[in-house]
């Protein structure tokens, strides 16, 4: 059974333009981060990314979801996180939606190691990583309704 699935993979890779969107709904718990990473990893692999790009995408999505759990839901484990992955042309986009508190992405300062050292904590690292590791990071929020962040990366052909 496992073998037959594997043999189908190359066909999937060639047809990535026609791949359907994939969706994952999870509760806002840190224990779900590993399921989120696996979900994103599989989709990025099927799309044809190499290992190093897959690792960057996973980390960016982990950071986005960790921020949602911490800041949008303030560790309330009953919040919803909806992750939808779209494949279009050579672009891989991950949309992450939550229904928690809206935060102002522009209010997050750039990472400052000296300040972290003095304050014994880090803040804004996740956002910095997301912007560094992905091609695009877009926020779209309707306060009181939902927040959306869309992370995207283009597949570079060798």
């Amino acid at each position, binding site marked *: 059974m496992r073998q037959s699935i594997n043999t189908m993979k190359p066909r999937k890779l060639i047809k990535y333009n026609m791949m359907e969107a994939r969706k994952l709904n999870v509760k806002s*718990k840190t224990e779900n981060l*590993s399921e989120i*990473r696996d979900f994103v990893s599989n989709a990025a692999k099927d799309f044809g990314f190499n290992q190093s790009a897959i690792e960057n995408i996973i*980390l960016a999505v982990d950071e986005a979801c*960790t921020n949602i759990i911490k800041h949008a839901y303030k560790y309330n484990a009953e919040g919803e996180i909806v992750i939808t992955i779209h494949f279009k042309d050579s672009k891989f986009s991950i949309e992450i939606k939550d229904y928690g508190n809206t935060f102002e992405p522009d209010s997050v300062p750039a990472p400052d*190691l000296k300040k972290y050292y003095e304050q*014994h904590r880090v803040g804004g690292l*996740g956002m910095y990583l997301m912007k560094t590791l992905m091609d695009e990071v877009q926020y779209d929020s309707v306060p009181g309704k939902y927040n959306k962040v869309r992370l995207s990366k283009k597949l570079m052909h060798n």
Partner: protein
Amino acid sequence: MAEFSAATKQSDEVSIIYLKGFLDAHTAPQLEAEFTNLIEKNKYYIVVNFKDLIYISSAGLGVFMAYIEKVRENNGDIKLVEMSEKVFNIFDLLGFPLLYEIYKSQDEAINKYNETKKIN
């Protein structure tokens, strides 16, 4: 659920924390507990071995920032060793090598502590 473990072993006065698996917002409290435990016992010569760490997110990096000043105030340090290239790249991206001593081998870090003690 992500697999992670942090186990501490003593090598004379140096405490070595061995990390394994995935260090993220879910598993970071386990590492915090190791640091808290060492500090309670006044053990400030700390080496963290990353050999078996597969993954780290900013929540994991934050743990090192939480304890470093306290440890250094007590003439100790947190030295990081045996990182994979992938994990090092994340530390590097955020400028952590400016703040932490990172060594290829565990012995190098332990020797560094021994040299410092001789000088003192």
